[in-house]
């Protein structure tokens, strides 16, 4: 026999109104217990940081704004920005080649990805730095034809430019894959809508698809920027005076290893925090641009339009 009602004779049949009765909120005892355990752990960690003599906070403080450290910091920022910009520009080109109808472009970009994702950046840095052993003279010209200009490889490849090359090429491979995913996430209808108003393929790409694709890839690119910041510390193997190498130089003189590593750590964390905040701000701005209600007056809303288009 099928049960059509689960109501049994024991159920109350009296209607009781809840009107005017304030319900009692649920209690969460485990929140408090879990919270207490966490607070205890954090407190003991801070206690360790502050009271451990070997941290030598006074030494940390005295070197935090040391000129050598600050110039290292500047080098780290330069490396991050340059490698990232070059990597992204190359990445866009490689991504477009990956999606090209031309099989030659697709193959070349695939090989590029395969190589630069496959070789560790540290190996690349050392390799580029020693390029002169392989190719003593760099020249611009027609392959197998005349050359227009040439340079001694050792003057072109400094530890700084080798670092940029290694980091930017690695980044280009990763950026290309993210940007390709972004481009593919923009619906095909967008391309068609551009084509039917008479735009060329490249106009559609530049004005319709890429602006939308780049918006999609901001979170992963921001993530990459932060990891790039930390990857720049690899350049200390080429004796490029970045933040880490500057700290190493100082502690090789005064043997205050831990305090100077702390100095470097603090600066890396500061930069990372700034980048994270910047990324959040950018995402919020792009979101605000699309979702501000029409009720907001034009003049006020235009301020949300990013990249100075207002």
């Amino acid at each position, binding site marked *: 026999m099928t049960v059509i009602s689960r109501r049994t004779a024991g159920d109350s049949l009296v209607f009781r109104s809840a009107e005017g009765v304030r319900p009692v909120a649920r209690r969460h005892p485990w929140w408090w217990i879990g919270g207490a355990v966490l607070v205890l752990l954090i407190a003991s960690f801070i206690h360790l940081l502050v009271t451990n003599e070997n941290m030598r906070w006074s030494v940390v403080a005295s070197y935090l704004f040391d000129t050598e450290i600050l110039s290292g910091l500047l080098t780290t920022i330069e490396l991050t920005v340059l490698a990232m910009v070059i990597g992204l520009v190359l990445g866009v080109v490689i991504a477009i080649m990956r999606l090209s109808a031309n099989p030659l472009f697709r193959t070349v970009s695939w090989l590029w990805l395969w190589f630069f994702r496959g070789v560790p950046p540290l190996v690349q840095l050392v390799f580029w730095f020693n390029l002169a052993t392989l190719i003593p003279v760099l020249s611009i010209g027609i392959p197998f034809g005349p050359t227009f200009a040439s340079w001694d490889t050792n003057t072109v490849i400094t530890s700084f430019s080798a670092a940029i090359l290694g980091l930017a090429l690695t980044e280009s491979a990763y950026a290309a894959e993210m940007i390709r995913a972004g481009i593919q996430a923009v619906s095909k209808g*967008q391309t068609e809508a551009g084509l039917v108003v008479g735009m060329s393929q490249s106009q559609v790409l530049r004005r*319709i698809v890429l602006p*939308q694709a780049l918006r999609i890839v901001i979170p992963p690119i921001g993530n990459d920027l932060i990891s790039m910041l930390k990857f720049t510390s690899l350049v200390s193997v080429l004796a490029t005076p970045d933040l880490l190498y500057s700290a190493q130089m100082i502690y090789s003189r005064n043997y205050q290893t831990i305090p100077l590593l702390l100095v470097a750590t603090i600066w890396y964390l500061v930069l990372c925090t700034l980048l994270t905040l910047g990324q959040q701000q950018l995402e919020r701005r792009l979101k605000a641009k699309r*979702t501000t209600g029409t009720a907001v007056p034009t003049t006020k809303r235009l301020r949300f339009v990013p990249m100075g288009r207002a």
Partner: protein
Amino acid sequence: MTQPHRQATETPVMPLLRVDKVNKHFGHNHVLRDVSLDVYCGQVQCVIGPSGSGKSTLLRCINWLEVPDGGYVYLDGQPVGYRWKGDALHEMKPAQLAVQRRRMGMVFQGFHLFPHKQVIENVTEGPIVVNGTDRDQAREEAMALLAKVGLAEKAEAYPEQLSGGQQQRVAIARSLAMKPDLMLFDEPTSALDPELVGDVLDVMRDLATDGMTMVVVTHEMAFAREVADQVVFMDEGCCVESGTPEELFGSPAEQRTRSFLARVQ
């Protein structure tokens, strides 16, 4: 007002658009089989038929979003996608195809407005980028078009703030901004809530009254009956029959047409 245009069907003038024995395959699927139709200047042609009958593909073959693999489409007597060099027919460069596409506006079932641009920017994008129209002039013309579709007050909004019906009307304004000779509508109301369909059809009706040449793929039989000069019934990739709304809806010759109409009406 549209009377002189309508007489064009009876006098031997050149059709604005001629689709001549167009074929299209997707893999082994023969989607269009020798489809032919003529559209004269100022005419409204409605294409009806069950889903999967090739109506949308036909429309997309007209402006070469899909390349037909047999037959030709002619716009003003010139083959779309090809150009004559003496007696030889050469495939066009993309830039030349873009010039032909400019003359054919298209409205999609899914609107496809540019989500990162304001409504007014959606409308001015074509004129500014493609035609090189002065920005202020483009905005002025765009405002006039938005007023025409009843959305002047939404000029500063972004597409996602609009209802589907409003988005579709913006899409129509965006196409009109390129001053096309011909408008292609690909099931413009199929993605809309029923109460929003009327606004879009009103705009299309106004366009027809203004003398715009239109090819409309639609499931709105009442609209086809009222606005079309010619109705084409398609089934399984074939043009089964065509005629005036009175002929096609009143006394369809083919059994397939009769059973389709019986199902939708």
